[in-house]
């Protein structure tokens, strides 16, 4: 499906989606509270069939955090970017690891580096850093005068 058709169908599914201009793929902001149902719809709906999550990450804008999900369909070969805004002091969002199994490791990494809590994740703990690490390094306000020798 082309980008315009995707936009129309997506607005039917999620009326409250806000679209961002620019870029080669559609970018849609959704509400973090009903992300789980939207994700299941995106996976199973005949029009969409987004069965392949190829990138899950988080961006720290200094006032809030944004989760970014890159989806594509192996059947129709169309792609989509979904974003969700999170509160900086208490970032929480539903897990999608039962919809796309690849999200298990990706969400653990996002928890490790940004501190985002994924509700109902099967095994949420630190992945890349030591278990007793203090803080969330990829946030913009992370300070570590011992290790981070700034250029």
């Amino acid at each position, binding site marked *: 499906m082309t980008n315009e058709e995707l936009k129309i169908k997506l607005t039917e599914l999620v009326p409250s989606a806000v679209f961002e201009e620019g870029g080669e793929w559609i970018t849609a902001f959704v509400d973090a509270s009903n992300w789980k149902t939207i994700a299941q719809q995106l996976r199973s709906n005949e029009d969409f069939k987004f069965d392949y999550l190829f990138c899950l990450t988080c961006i720290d804008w200094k006032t809030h955090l944004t989760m970014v999900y890159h989806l594509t369909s192996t059947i129709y070969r169309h792609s989509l970017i979904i974003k969700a805004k999170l509160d900086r002091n208490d970032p929480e969002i539903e897990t999608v690891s039962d919809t796309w199994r690849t999200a298990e490791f990706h969400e653990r990494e996002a928890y490790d580096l940004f501190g985002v809590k994924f509700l109902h994740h099967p095994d949420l703990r630190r992945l890349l*850093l*030591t278990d007793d690490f203090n803080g969330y390094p990829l946030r913009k306000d992370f300070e*570590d005068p011992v*290790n981070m*020798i*700034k250029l």
Partner: protein
Amino acid sequence: MSDENKINNGFTKVSPPTGGGDKEGAFPGQVHPTAGGGILVSKLDEVINWARSNSLWPLVFGTSCCAIEMMSTASAKYDWSRFGFEVARATPRQADVIIIAGTIVNKMAPVLKRLYDQMPDPKYVIAMGACATSGGPFFYNTYSVVKGADHVIPVDVYIAGCPPRPEALLHALITLQEKIKSGATREQIKNGIGN
């Protein structure tokens, strides 16, 4: 006494298994000083150093890119077994030299220390590549890299390069061999051999 030290060749004194015995020194039995004993013993030191340096067995320890150059050095074109590094052991209990090939991060540092402690004396360390020498390309603005493997264990030879060529690694191995023969590694200075 210095004579007794030389005869012992730096091994710590061990009392004989049965109580008593002729001397409380390292050898069970009698020690007869011979004329010209100094020359005989220092020749023995040289022989031991020569034997040690020509049969150093490395430990398989490669964390990142330098490990590939280490594997290249082990394979047919730049063969290191010509110099005695024939068998690369996987267990530290049977290895002599640990070649730290790759970056050491905060999570890996206790593992490296434990491996080093598990190696029996005499042991030597080569820091291969820029990352093991000083943190390398990951020196600035990283929160998890140990800036140099010598923050964790004492190092004998440093190799520069990112990654160093196999010839550079061979040069470092030969340097280590010469260092052992001349009695200048940490182990030997500590034990007073070859002075």
